[in-house]
Structure formats: structure tokens, C-alpha cells
């Protein structure tokens, strides 16, 4: 090969690399592809009340307490960990209560902007407490504040599908309690690789409504927190 041809090929190769690099970087990574609807969902005011954003800005407390998921209802947020004994729930709640006065997460710019109004509201602090979770008779930790709205009331699965498309996966779960009262039959619609799950319960006054949303806590913290 002549020297001039070699130089041409080398320059062409470099040019191709420069051309290709921005194209490659514009392709979302698998993780980014998964988290994109999650990202959007976590700031969606059609799904959440303003109180949810205050709670999301403090999700690190759940993570630090060892909770891998939370259940967001209209009026409360409940930890995913189930305890058999009340004292176990009380211990977890007490540990979490000690963290409730910590400043909230340093948010990534996108979430800082989206949550700004919610975080600037003057509201009483959320209370961490142990509860008996009626659905399965387990003891759990919940966050609550009188009058708070976390999940939007009257949110239907139809509205979720209209906004985000069909769920990636839909499953049914029968939740047995200690006794033999009617069990809850949950219909679980998963999005974003299962990081967010919209749950309908046949025990709800209107089973078409979303009863709760289950969030993957570490994934949500990773998304919301700036330092991550």
C-alpha cells in the first residue's frame, strides 16, 4: 500500500470514529432505556400528589433502613419488609424515626426542578410508625401525615396505560392473611423492568383504581439523588 493511501485510510478511520462516537453515545444504554419511564413516572403529577415528592426526596431513609421496596398508597407509604412480631416493626420504625429530621437528598437537577414546589411547602414532618398491615397481618413501617396525598386518588390503570403504554408484565397475586377472611387478589402491572409496579386490589371500593404503587427503593434513590 502506498504511503499516501495509508495516511488517507488512517484519517478516514479517525473521521469515522469521531462521526460514530456521538451517535453511539446518543443510543441509550439498557439501564437508561429501563429507567427512562421510571424517571418520567417519578415526576408525573398525574400519578403523585405533592406529598409524594417530599417523600421521594427522602427515600434514602428507606434504603438505609434496609427496605428494598415501598408501597405508595393515597394516604400513606408502607415499607415492603414484613415482620411477624410487633416489636420488630416498632424497632424498624424507631430507627427510621431517628432519621426523619435529616435533610433530604441532594437531588439531581431534573428532580430538583420537578420537586422544588413540593419541597418548598411548609408542612409537618412525615411520621414513621409501626402498623399492622391488614392485608397479610404483617407488621410494617409506614410514613403518614394527616391529610397527605401521596398517590393520586382516582388514578385508574386505564390512565396509566394511556400515558405509558401497556405494562411490560402483568401478574396476579393472592395475599393470604393469618386468618381465613377474604384474601386480597392483586393485579400487578410492572413497568421499567419491574422498578415500578401499579397494583389494583379486588378489595378496593373500585377495583379499576390503582390501589398502590410499589417502587424499587435503591433504583429510585439512584435516579433521584445527584451524587449517584
Amino acid at each position, binding site marked *: 500500500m502506498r504511503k499516501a493511501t495509508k495516511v488517507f485510510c488512517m484519517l478516514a478511520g479517525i473521521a469515522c470514529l469521531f462521526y460514530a462516537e456521538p451517535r453511539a453515545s446518543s443510543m441509550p444504554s439498557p439501564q437508561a432505556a429501563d429507567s427512562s419511564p421510571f424517571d418520567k413516572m417519578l415526576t408525573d403529577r398525574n400519578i403523585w400528589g405533592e406529598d409524594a415528592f417530599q417523600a421521594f426526596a427522602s427515600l434514602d431513609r428507606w434504603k438505609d433502613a434496609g427496605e428494598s421496596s415501598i408501597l405508595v398508597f393515597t394516604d400513606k407509604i408502607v415499607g415492603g419488609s414484613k415482620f411477624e412480631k410487633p416489636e420488630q416493626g416498632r424497632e424498624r420504625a424507631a430507627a427510621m424515626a431517628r432519621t426523619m429530621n435529616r435533610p433530604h437528598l441532594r437531588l439531581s437537577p431534573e428532580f430538583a426542578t420537578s420537586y422544588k414546589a413540593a419541597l418548598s411547602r411548609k408542612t409537618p414532618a412525615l411520621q414513621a410508625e409501626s402498623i399492622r398491615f391488614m392485608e397479610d397481618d404483617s407488621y410494617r413501617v409506614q410514613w403518614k401525615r394527616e391529610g397527605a396525598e401521596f398517590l393520586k386518588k382516582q388514578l385508574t390503570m386505564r390512565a396509566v396505560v394511556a400515558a405509558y403504554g401497556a405494562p411490560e408484565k402483568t401478574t396476579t397475586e393472592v395475599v*393470604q392473611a393469618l386468618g381465613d377472611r377474604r384474601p386480597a*387478589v392483586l393485579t400487578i402491572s410492572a413497568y421499567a423492568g419491574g422498578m415500578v409496579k401499579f397494583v389494583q386490589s379486588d*378489595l378496593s371500593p373500585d377495583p379499576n383504581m390503582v390501589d398502590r404503587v410499589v417502587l424499587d427503593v435503591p433504583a429510585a434513590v439512584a435516579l433521584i439523588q445527584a451524587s449517584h
Partner: protein
Amino acid sequence: MNTIRSRSNGHLVAAVVLCSVSFGSGCGKLFVRDIATDALDPSNLADTEPSIAVNPEHPRHIAIVTFSENWSAAKGAPVWKSSDSGKTWTKVFQVVQPTPGEFGPGDQKLDFDANGRIYVAELASGGGGINDYVYRQTGGPDAPLTPGASYGNDQPHLSVDRSSSSPLKGHLYSPWLDFSQPLERSTVAASSNEGIAMSSVGAGDNSSFPNRTTRSAAAPDGKIYIIYKTREGTGGAPAGFENAHFHVNRSDDGGLTWTGLGASGISVHGATQVQTYFTTSFGNLAKGKVARARSSDAWIAVNQENGDVHAAYVQRDASGFAQIYVARSTDQGATWTSARASDGTHNSAYPEIAVTKRGVVGLLFVDYDDAGAVTLFRHHFARSFDHGSSWDDDVLQTMNPGPLSNASSGFLWGDYEGLTAAKNTFYGVFTGESSGRTVLQLDPVFFRQKSCRWWWLGCWLEDDD
């Protein structure tokens, strides 16, 4: 000669016509109907754990509750009603939310009093816990029902004393399971004023073992019976089974005390333990959906004519299968004679028992056949014309719940279903595969059958109760 032959032919024709008419009129024939329609059940709800009651004043009037629509602040939960012996049905949304924030129906059971007024026992759950209520009729038959005092906890049942010979006519009794005890206790709430006030009294013996599966029946002399089991561990029992005794006890004072048959009652199968179900996997999980069977192993009924007590229970026996046994007491529960009612070939559970006026015993139960590729569940209705010594068994329906989208594995038809008797007819309801629906699903299926054989003349002359 010709005249004689002609007369013989005439008799033959008459006999054939008579037989045809009797068959055609359905004397003693089993009537089975899916009571849901696309119009009545537009949301394709599962309609599980059904219960049934028949108005003693107007036996063509039948009421059923199932897990259908839930109540809300704005609208009641439904009672399915028929006024033509079960041929056609409507939904009357009359079970209102008892207090704001309480969800339901949870468990439920219904009954009528002697005057044809309906009562419904309901479990409601909310932020504060679990409450039971007995709803009563304070307006027209289809007007919203009025909840009484809150009481109780798990799985409330209901029996109304409606016998004209009873000194406690009008009293009602609601067994429930008390989970606040270290060992759960069968408890009965009684009311002398239609559920406006309820008084709960511990009725089961939980001194050594927790109780479960509490069912009740009122006798014509004002006595009230319960059957319950003591859960005595799983030692030696196969997976999904536990050791137990099924006890019957009696209250002779309107539910104030439960010592009519001693502190813990009488074991209907004697001193020896039996093995019964305690599982969320009734069926074969490897071959399809399964059902919960934890409080699905006992029922009790009283003959309203002579006071005989009949108890049905589950016992895994030498056949290797869980079987339905029926015990009978002719001395107010003091002694019992027990015999197997199912055929010893398949695992069986979910017994409900009833007795008609002429003393025929009816038994509703479920078994399953997993010999093929999928598990087939079969609802049986058996009748005994000889006090439980032998049984005529009909399969009401064979169902593979696999394709039924609203059939949830782990809770298929519920913990119990419905069977009752009015005069000489059995009335029942089970949750089975739909028929005539756009979407194949679980629906409440009603059935009725007279307690006679087709060749009994009296059967033909009876009203269609």
C-alpha cells in the same frame, strides 16, 4: 279380545304419558343455573365464597351473597335475589358501607328470620382493624340494610333461630374466630335484638390447641349448636394436612354459655384424632390452579322436625384420600354415629350439609381429579334418604379453572359455599365455571333439588317450594 288388547294398550299409553309428564315436569330433578349474566356482572367479577338463604315465608324468594362488587361510600354491595325459585336473578345493592373508611365485603353469610326478613353478617376491614356487623332489614326488602353493633374478627357466620317452637325465636348467632387470644378461639356473638347489640362469648376449647372452622345451626327447641376444630399439630400428617378433632358444643341459653356438651363439647368422631386439610394448595399445583382449604372442613345442620343434629367433616382415611364424613346425633349432640359420604377415590373437602323437613340430608362438597394433564375440580351434591348410611351423588359441575381468567390460584371458590333447605327442597350455590357468558369465568351457580325420588307420588304433588 280386541277390546282387552285395546284397553291394555290404553293403560300402556297412559303409563307412558304419566311417566313422560313426571319426567318432563322435573319431579325431583336437579335444577342448575349460572345466575350471573353479562348485564348483571359487567366487570366479570369472581363471585367467590357464596352463601345462600331462602325466605321461609316465601320459599320462591332466594338470596345469595358472593364476593361481587364491593361497597363504597356511595353504593352498597349486592345481594343476589330471585323471586321465582332461582329461574331469574337481580342484584340489589343494599349492603352499605358500615362506617367510613371500612372496606368490604370480607367474609359474609346470610339468613332469614321467621318473618322473611333478611340478615347478613359481614366482615369489614379498615385502618383500625377488622369488624363484623350483622345487617338487618329496617325498610323494604330491597332497601339499604342497616348494620348493627360491631363485633368479632375472622370469618363471621350467621344462624337465625326462626323455629315457631323455639323459646328464643328471633335470636341470632354469629360464630367467629378470636385472633386476639394466644391460641385462636371459636367465639359466638349472640343477639336478641336483630344484631343491634351483639354479645360475644368464647365457645371453643382453646386451652391446648387453637380453634378454627366454626359453623352454627339453630335447633327447633331454641338450642344452638356449633362445630369447630382444634388444630393439634402436623406430626405424622402429610403435607397440607394437620391433626384435629371436630367438636360439637351447644348453648341452651341463647349463647350466654357454651357448656351444653361440656367445656370442650363432644368429638363427633370419637377420641381418635383425624387428619384434615390446612393448606393453600387444595389440588395439584403441578397441574393447574389450586384452592385454599384451611377453614373448609366442617359444617353442621339440625333437622327442624325432630332435632337430630348432622355434622359433616373432612377426614383423611385409609383410602389415602381426604374424605367427607357425616356424623349424626339423635340425642342433642351427646353421642354420634359417623360414616363416610364420599366414595374413597379422590381428595375431597368443603362440605356443607342441610336437612329437609322430611329428614333427607343434602351434602355439597368438592373433590378433584388430577389423573389427567390438568386438575379437574368437581362440585358434588349428594343426598341421603337413610340418615347418612348411603348417598346418591350427582356431580354438579366439573371445572378446570386454568382458562378462567378471574380464577385466582390460592382462592378459587372460597373457604365455603352455600347449601340450605326450605321445606322439602335443597337450595345451593357454588362458584363454578360460567355458562352463557361472553367471557369464560367464575360465576355463582345456583342449584335446587327436591328431597324425594322421582317415583315418590308425594314428590309430584309437592309445590315447587
